[in-house]
């Protein structure tokens, strides 16, 4: 059940250029169970910046009652967030949305995880839970350049991990789809999170496979009330899904990308 809580900053550090890893502790963690869910963070009690920021859950540690978020410092909100020190509290609403379906893949089957940029974090908890289930995990992570690559080693602990950078400064030069093609990676189920063009490319590349895509969209409320983050459903003029409450994970083909 979603709740609102002042969570405490436990650890907070930059892990790549403008990429921060933020670990929070609080009772809210007890409600977090699905990889791919997100939280809605209010970075200040002031009126500016006004809106909450949707950030995906990267790690969930029920024993320590801690969760980790990874975000990119980009605008005013994330810059303010990056200044939070251990011991300070942050207003968190969550967990929100529906995560990646773990039951889509059986023990012994192969899952391919594809992440692009700041879409990589939610795949970490997914990889962790899939491996625990006995699924063979392969990860392909795409970034712009070497400076913003993160969690390569962490993903490698769960299985084969490949990196693509657009400028070729690390791993394969090009996109995640180039790596998948080049390595002829086989899989039973594909899970992906990242920019829309990447998700579109994956959807087109594997029309006959079971593919789950996590979408990102500008949100108002994060809980389904404001209708800001809707997407169309194929073949209908009026049908829609809300990214925040129906998603953010959808089966390929379920919504129009």
């Amino acid at each position, binding site marked *: *059940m*979603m709740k*609102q809580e002042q969570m405490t900053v436990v650890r907070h550090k930059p892990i790549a250029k403008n990429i921060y890893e933020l670990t929070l502790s609080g009772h809210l963690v007890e409600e977090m169970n699905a990889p791919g869910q997100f939280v809605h963070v*209010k970075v200040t009690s002031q*009126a*500016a*910046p*006004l*809106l*909450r920021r949707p950030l995906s859950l990267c790690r969930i540690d029920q024993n320590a009652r801690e969760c980790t978020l990874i975000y990119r410092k980009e605008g005013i*909100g994330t810059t303010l967030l990056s200044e939070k020190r251990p011991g300070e509290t942050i207003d968190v*609403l969550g967990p929100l949305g529906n995560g990646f379906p773990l039951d889509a893949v059986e023990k012994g089957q192969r899952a391919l995880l594809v992440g692009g940029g700041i879409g990589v974090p939610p795949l970490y908890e997914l990889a962790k839970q899939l491996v625990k289930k006995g699924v063979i995990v392969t990860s392909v992570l795409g970034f712009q350049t070497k400076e913003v690559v993160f969690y390569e080693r962490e993903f490698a602990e769960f299985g084969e991990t490949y990196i693509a950078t657009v400028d070729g400064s690390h791993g394969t030069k090009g996109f995640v789809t180039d790596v998948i093609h080049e390595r002829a990676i086989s899989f039973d189920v594909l899970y992906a999170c990242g920019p829309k063009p990447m998700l579109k490319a994956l959807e087109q590349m594997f029309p006959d496979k079971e593919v789950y895509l996590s979408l990102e*969209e*500008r*949100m*108002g*409320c*994060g*809980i*389904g*009330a*404001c*209708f*800001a*983050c*809707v*997407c*169309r459903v194929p073949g209908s*003029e*009026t049908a*829609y899904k809300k990214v925040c*409450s129906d998603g953010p994970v959808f089966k390929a083909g379920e919504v129009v990308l």
Partner: protein
Amino acid sequence: MNRLAVELPGLSLKNPIMPASGCFGFGREYAQFYDLSKLGAIMIKATTKEPRFGNPTPRVAETPSGMLNAIGLQNPGLEKVMKEELPWLAQFDVPIIANVAGSTMEEYVEVAKHISKAPNVHALELNISCPNVKKGGIAFGTVPEIAAELTKLVKEVSEVPVYVKLSPNVTNIVEMAKAIEAAGADGLTMINTLLGMRIDVKTAKPILANRTGGLSGPAIKPIAIRMIYEVSQAISIPIIGMGGIQSAEDVIEFFYAGASAVAIGTANFIDPFVCPNIIDKLPALLDELGIDHISECMGRSWKKGERSVYCGA
């Protein structure tokens, strides 16, 4: 004595706090956080005759102390609202104010006629001020004669009192309010969002797919206060005020300006508990201000002798 109870045409409110239309859906999401019966009323999302998808995304953009939206009146349509949403809301002890929208006068009339028959709909809010739709919406809310004609037509068919939601995107809001009052409106709700725009510095493209959107949030509060202050002294029907309310203090300020009840919009997105929290905090604030009943706040800032105070019943 319930110090927060307010009487308005069609509405016996246990408190004057209600979520504003378009910021609360049909209540289902917020019902996961608290009992909706706690609210004074609920202004549900705008309803049109047919289901409406709305505008392409992105539909929201942040601004200093505010947000722009261009949802475009997305809603499931009259039939579904009547069959599914209103009966679901009937489980709560809270009057519903149905926001009525349309592309033509006939459509407004059709929606008003049917939705006003729902047992838990106690009033209509005529949406003539949505800035995000090409047909209807603001087109009806910027020309006094057209707004008056539409008000008259809807009044003829509505089985409950009709409140008209004023747009701030006009040169003379007092003139508009007077025309609507003369046409028989039972009350006004104001203000709707202000037309605004943001452009991405990196791409030079408008952030909203619709290019322009409606500005809401604390950034617009001073404009709402000014407009309510001016309009409330020029008319005799009550005003439900809205525009950037975030706290109990903001509510009192709206009453001082001339509102008889208030609606809370954008603040729900930032704090889902904002409405019940404000309701809880109001009695202590009244104590602090030495005020027995919230209605006594109404119009306190008016110029002396402008007109008698509307205190509800």
